[in-house]
Every structure is written in structure tokens, then in C-alpha cells.
């Protein structure tokens, strides 16, 4: 019989980008599977080109493979053409290292980065011959586990995931492996006995140990443990110091294909305390923990040495907030210049400091600068706690133009709580003022190249664990109307307007705020052929609507409903370390239009995350001083 590898190689000339499926990239870890005790498949529920860029995945891959008795291998969602061929030829979903069927692994771990990848997870389980529902799995099936930001509302995928791992994975994943070694050595090898063992670990949530309840009106009432011994709440895991935890160096895989973020990502810090009220990552990754400049320099040089990459990006949720970011950039540049490696920053704060940073980085080629004012008026920016003033924005844009940039990208959100048409007009006015600023600062005739402003709007999604978790999302009709309004007003030779697919934003809201019943809808949607829902061209919204109807749930009741502050929420049993009281207070302040500052700047706001025993030191300083040339 042909091996999976042989079968795959025979069909690859018939699919798009076959290099997605060949593995064998530089720094791939290939172990003799006969000589390891535990096999872990790390699965990213998206196509290779997207999934390969994910940092968390690289960390777990390297960390697990460091263990002698463990082999970790990668799995990605096959693109449509490949899926069709695989089904036609009876090829199981396989790992890229050993071309082993995912069902022959001990663990199959998914990262949940975005709700619209959930149907891909079901499809991948199906392609791997693994029962989709947790309750249908047997002894020989792998444990299907999940983590990542979207796991902080685990309920919509609760029927399919055996257990969730919440928060920083660097420590807890090894604790899970220890439990597995223990379980393999003991007599009771039932799935349930292992689940009981991992449930004892902080950061692990086993959905099957809980029952969901609804009131007579069909509203979510509560989620409660089935056994008295099961903990009510699952605490997220946090690593105290980034200098001490594992970071991939030798296992930093260099793909053949041009993947979306084809560069080294150097995580300079984790967490963000700016406190934008719509932002889920800002809550989930708290507190701020910086890697030391010495450690970063060491890592940067090592990873470049191992990969040969031409670019290293200093990543975090808000990179210009790193204490002493400027000396860090200069030092890295000095260390890597000789190797012909560029240092880049993914995003910028709206201030002069950031333009100066960009100037250090984009010395020669001034491509574009990206800013995110998020809202069009001061009033609304105060509501969302985006501490950016129009003055900041104008002076920043002016400075960018003076320094030679012609292209500015602006990110806004529509449908934010309390938004009115005045705020939309505010977006238009802001953009017009920036165009005016260009004319004021530069002499167009002497300028090479033309002004270009790209405006992108996404639609607000009320996310669990944020101060806006109780707020409704605007209706689909409203989204379309607002986008139409902006499309009409943001016309001009210098302007490009992009908007986010309204149906995708709606579904994201429904699933994000979903309870356990949503599992059935996701299942139905998958059954009806939904996958790659995050891709505008492939989202089949009518089938999703049908799936909701079929299950007997109204999507609007999840997305467009204002939830009472007193109500139990389907994700209340997951503790991010930030108290619900703090979120409620932030919510109240937002409605009063009151802002709060960054806790690293001023005083502690009492979110609660630093009370966690694993956290000792969280402070950093935010540099805003002028940069001297």
C-alpha cells in the first residue's frame, strides 16, 4: 500500500501552491516517531501561508520538540483544491514532518485565533478520521485540545474540544505532558481519567465536566460543574518573566513559500495596558511583561543566524510602548547591519515619537505609516478610551509628511457603542483635514509621488472579557448603511476606502458571545459545506443562516442584544485575572465619556491582574521623549 507521503506527492502537481504540503523546510524538527513516547500534532485551522506566520505555534513547536520523548509536528488546513483531492484519494489529514495521519497522534492541538476558523477545525477532524464530537471519541483517538485568544469563550466549541488550555502556554503545556506520562503508566487508561488529571492543572478547562442551563425564555442561565469536586472557575495561566521562558531559535522554520508575515517576529513584550475598551487582547494578555534588551539582542542574533531571514519585526500589541524602544532599535540595527537585516515595527502610536521611530527604521524606503485613531470624534475616542486627540493626529500626520512619507494608512471602527452619524462624519472630516495637512506641509510640485490615504474600517464586535462585552453589535443593515455612507464620502483621487465584510463581523459577534448551543450551529454549517469562513469570497452566509434556523437559534439574539450587567455570561467561568467589577466600571465610565490612563503611566486602576501570585513585577516605562538624531 502507498504511504500518505507517496499519495500526497502524486497529487501535488494538480493543486495550487504545492509547497504548502511538502514540509521539509529549513529548521523543521524531524524525529524518529518509533523512538518517542508522545506525539503532538499542532494544528492551525487555516491554510499554510497564514498559519505558518503564527508565533504562539512556533513557541509550542520548539518547546515540545526540546523534550526528548516528545515529537511535535505541524498540521494546516488544506485549501479547497487539496481537500477535494485528499477526499478523492482517501488521504487522511497528515502532519508535515512525518506525513502521519492526525488520528495517530496522542494530542491534536488547535489554536483558536479567530471564530471564523471554527468550521475548518471540524473539517480537519473529519479529514483526519477523528470523531467530531468529544463524547464520540475512543481510547485510540487523540485528545483534541485548544488554546489561543478565542478559547477565552470556550463554549461555542465545547462539544468538539476535549480540553482547553487558557493563557500563556509555555509552562502548562509541559505540565500536561507530565500528566500524560503519568496516565500512560497507570492502570485506568480511560479518557475520562486523563481529563480528570489535567483538570487539576491551573489553566485547563474540561467542558464535559460542566453542564449549561437556560431559562424558560431560552436565555443563558448558568454553567455549573457536574461534580462537586470540579472547580467553578478556570484561571488563565501567566508566565512571570519573558526572559526566562522558552523562545524558538533553532526550530524557527523558514518556509519556501512567501507566507503572510515572512520574517522573524521578535516578541519584545506581552500585554498592553493602554486600556482601549473594545480590545480583547488588551485584557487577555495582561499584565505587561517586557523582555530585556540584552535578551532580545541575543535572541535576534541567534535567530537570524539560524534562519537567514532578511527582516526582523519587533512585535507586541503596541511596540512603541516598550521602555527604551529607541535604544533597542538602534542596538539591534547595529548588531544586524552587517548581515543585511532590516529591523521593522508592525504598528505605530499616533504621536511624534512614533514618526521619529519610523524615521530610524525606514531610512531609505519610506513605504507607508499606519495609525489607528479608531474613531472619528473626540467624544467617541473618549468613550472607547483611545487616548488620541485630533491635535495629535494632525501634528503626527504633518510630521510624517515633512519627513517624506506620502502614504498613510488609517484604521477606524464603525458601530462602536454610542456612535451616531456625527461620528461617521468625524471620520470623513479627519481624513479631509489630513489631506489639508499634506497641502499645508509640503509643496506638491516639488514632491516626488502623490499623497495616498488608505482608510480601513472594521465593524465593532463586542468581545467577551472586555468592558463592552454587554453591548450589542449594530445590525447588519446598519453596518451596510454606515459603510455606504463612508464609501460615498471618502471619494477622491488620494483616498482608498476598504471595509470589512459585514456578514463576517456579524458571525464573529454571534460566535464570540455564543454559549454551548452554538456548537450545534457550527456543526450544521460545516455539514452544509461551510469552511474558510474568514475569507470573504468563501463565506457562505446563507448557509449559516440556514444552520441557525435548523438548530432553532436566532443569531441576532447573540449579536444584537444588550446584556444586563447582572446576567451570568457564558464565559464567566473563565478568569482572565481582570475582574468583572473592573470591566463594569470601565463600561460605566465609557458611557459617561470619561477616560482612564495607562496604569504604567499613572496609578493602578485595580483591574486585578497583578494580584495573581505568579506576577511580581509588571512595570515598564513608556517613552514619549523627542528622539535626538
Amino acid at each position: 500500500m502507498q504511504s500518505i507521503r507517496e499519495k500526497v506527492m502524486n497529487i501535488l502537481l494538480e493543486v495550487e501552491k504545492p509547497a504548502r504540503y511538502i514540509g521539509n523546510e529549513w529548521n523543521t524538527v524531524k524525529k524518529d516517531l518509533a523512538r518517542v513516547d508522545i506525539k503532538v500534532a499542532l494544528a492551525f485551522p487555516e491554510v499554510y501561508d497564514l498559519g505558518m506566520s503564527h508565533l504562539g505555534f512556533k513557541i509550542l513547536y520548539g518547546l515540545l520538540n526540546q523534550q526528548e520523548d516528545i515529537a511535535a509536528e505541524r498540521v494546516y488546513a488544506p485549501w479547497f483544491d487539496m481537500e477535494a483531492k485528499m477526499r478523492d484519494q482517501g488521504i487522511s489529514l497528515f502532519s508535515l514532518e512525518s506525513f502521519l495521519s492526525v488520528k495517530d497522534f496522542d494530542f491534536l492541538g488547535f489554536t483558536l485565533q479567530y471564530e471564523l476558523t471554527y468550521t475548518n477545525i471540524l473539517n480537519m477532524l473529519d479529514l483526519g478520521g477523528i470523531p467530531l464530537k468529544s463524547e464520540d471519541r475512543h481510547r485510540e483517538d487523540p485528545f483534541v485540545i485548544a488554546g489561543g485568544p478565542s478559547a477565552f469563550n470556550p463554549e461555542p466549541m465545547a462539544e468538539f474540544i476535549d480540553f482547553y488550555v487558557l493563557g500563556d502556554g509555555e509552562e502548562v503545556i509541559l505540565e500536561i505532558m507530565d500528566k500524560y506520562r503519568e496516565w500512560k503508566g497507570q492502570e485506568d487508561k480511560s479518557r475520562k481519567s486523563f481529563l480528570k488529571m489535567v483538570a487539576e492543572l491551573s489553566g485547563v478547562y474540561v467542558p464535559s465536566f460542566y453542564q449549561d442551563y437556560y431559562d424558560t425564555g431560552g436565555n443563558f442561565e448558568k454553567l455549573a460543574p457536574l461534580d462537586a469536586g470540579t472547580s467553578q472557575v478556570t484561571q488563565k495561566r501567566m508566565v512571570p518573566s519573558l526572559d526566562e521562558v522558552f523562545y524558538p531559535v533553532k526550530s524557527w522554520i523558514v518556509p519556501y513559500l512567501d507566507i503572510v508575515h515572512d520574517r522573524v517576529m521578535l516578541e519584545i513584550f506581552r500585554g498592553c495596558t493602554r486600556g482601549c475598551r473594545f480590545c480583547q487582547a488588551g485584557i487577555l494578555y495582561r499584565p505587561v511583561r517586557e523582555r530585556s534588551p540584552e535578551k532580545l539582542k541575543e535572541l535576534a542574533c541567534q535567530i537570524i543566524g539560524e534562519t537567514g531571514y532578511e527582516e526582523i519585526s519587533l512585535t507586541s500589541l503596541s511596540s512603541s510602548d516598550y521602555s527604551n524602544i529607541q535604544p533597542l532599535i538602534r542596538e539591534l540595527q547595529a548588531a544586524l547591519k552587517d548581515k543585511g537585516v532590516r529591523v521593522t515595527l508592525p504598528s505605530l502610536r499616533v504621536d511624534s515619537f512614533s514618526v521619529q521611530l519610523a524615521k530610524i527604521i525606514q531610512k531609505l524606503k519610506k513605504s507607508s505609516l499606519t495609525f489607528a485613531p479608531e474613531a472619528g470624534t473626540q467624544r467617541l475616542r473618549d468613550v472607547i478610551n483611545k487616548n488620541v486627540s485630533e491635535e495629535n493626529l494632525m501634528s503626527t500626520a504633518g510630521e510624517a509628511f515633512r519627513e517624506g512619507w506620502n502614504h498613510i494608512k488609517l484604521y477606524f471602527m464603525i458601530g462602536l457603542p454610542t456612535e451616531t452619524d456625527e461620528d461617521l462624519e468625524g471620520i470623513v472630516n479627519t481624513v479631509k483635514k489630513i489631506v489639508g495637512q499634506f497641502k499645508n506641509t509640503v509643496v506638491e510640485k516639488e514632491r516626488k509621488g502623490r499623497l495616498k490615504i488608505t482608510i480601513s474600517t472594521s465593524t465593532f464586535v463586542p468581545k467577551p472579557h472586555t468592558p463592552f462585552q454587554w453591548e450589542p453589535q449594530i445590525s447588519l443593515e446598519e453596518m451596510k448603511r454606515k459603510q455606504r455612507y463612508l464609501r460615498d464620502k471618502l471619494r477622491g483621487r488620494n483616498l482608498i476606502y476598504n471595509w470589512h465584510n459585514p456578514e463576517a463581523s456579524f458571525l464573529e459577534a454571534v460566535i464570540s458571545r455564543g454559549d454551548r448551543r452554538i456548537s450545534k450551529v457550527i456543526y450544521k454549517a460545516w455539514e452544509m459545506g461551510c469552511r474558510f469562513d474568514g475569507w470573504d469570497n468563501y463565506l457562505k452566509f446563507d448557509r449559516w443562516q440556514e444552520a441557525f434556523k435548523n438548530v432553532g437559534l436566532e443569531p441576532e439574539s447573540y449579536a444584537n442584544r444588550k446584556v444586563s450587567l447582572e446576567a451570568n455570561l457564558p464565559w464567566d467561568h473563565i478568569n482572565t485575572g481582570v475582574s468583572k467589577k473592573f470591566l463594569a466600571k470601565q463600561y460605566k465610565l465609557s458611557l459617561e465619556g470619561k477616560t482612564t490612563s495607562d496604569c504604567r503611566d499613572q496609578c493602578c486602576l485595580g483591574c486585578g491582574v497583578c494580584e495573581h501570585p505568579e506576577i511580581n513585577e509588571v512595570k515598564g516605562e513608556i517613552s514619549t521623549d523627542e528622539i535626538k538624531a
Partner: protein
Amino acid sequence: MKLRLKFSKEEPLKFISHLDLQRLFTRAFRRAGIKLGLKGGFNPQPKISFALALPLGCTSSGEYLEAEIVDELNPQEVKDRLSFQLPEGISIKEVTEASQEDSSLTSRVSSCLYRVRFQTEESLNVNKLKETVKKLLQRKELEITRQKKKKTKKIDIIPLIEHLEVMSVNSFQGEVEMHLKTGAGGSIKPQEIMSIIEKEAPLTITNKKIHRKKLFLEGGK
């Protein structure tokens, strides 16, 4: 200094594109600590150029590239250091110093030697296949039509075939070797030759593996 590298591209790297291969080499040079020269101002690109792009899906045992390196290094040392940094599927056969005066590699490729192994639905007969090829080559003219966007172009391929020979046949499998011209005077792809054979024989080819054995360079050293 300018170096010429001869290398092979074997399974499974036949599935990576020409652009992927360029990136692969640039990164391998950096890992090996061999600095490449740069060209261009705003967005400097490494000075590395390939003789002739190998189509995705083909293997080869005789590809060439030229690279400008900053430091003076012994070609053998470059070969050793770079080989250590290349994935399974790419191996360097030879590194020599190239003359700065030589015209570009691309402009000097005149023809290529290919070996095509294929499988067929129907049982093959060696004499019949040889006869088909012989008749084909005896023609004064053999036109094929190529479609480029909306334009169709007819070309006579007989002058582009230096040599075409059936090497072996074994019931459902066959092997042919072809020496084909390329470059400014026109070129023909091995797939196109195979399609003609398929049509003329006639047969149904189910699977073919194309291997480039050699590139012929003219001019220069």
C-alpha cells in the same frame, strides 16, 4: 567576486517555485555567513541570478546560478559552507569563480537536455513509439499554437528540436530524452513535445516526470 554555482534540485523541492528558490538561496547564503553584493538603491536586492528558471514540478541535476559575494573566498569553501545550509533536495555540485566580463548567464543558455519518464494507460510498444518519433522528426514543419492571453501564435518547432529519442519502453512506462533549444531564437518546452507524442502515437499519458539533465551555455569561458 563573482561565483558560478552548479546545483541540483530534486524531490521534494520540485514543488517550490523559481521565486521560492531565489529566497531559499539568499537565506542560505546569510546563514552561511557569506555576504552577497547588493544592487538597487531604495530597496536593495542581492546580486544573485539564475541561468534559466526551472518550471515547478521538474527536477534537475544541472542548474546554474551566479552570485556576487562581497568577500574574497575560496570557491571550495563557499561550496562547503553553503552546502551545510541547504535543505534536502538542493545540492551544490560545483562552485567556480566566474569572469566579471562574461555576459549574463541567462543570455548564454542556448539549449537544455531533458529526460521524461512517463506512464500510459495503454500498453506501449517500443518500435511503434520509435517510429512515431522518427516520423515526427522527418517532417519539414511542425506547427504548434500557443495561447498568450488573447493572442494565439503559431510556431514551427522542428528547428527547435536538436535531438529527440526514445530511450526505453517497458509495457506501461516509457522514457524519452530530448535536447531542446531555448533563448532568443525561440524555445520549446518538454511538455509540449510530450503532448505532440501523445497526439501522434496516439496514447494517454497518465503521469510524467520531467528531469532537466543539463543546461548548455554558449560564449564566455
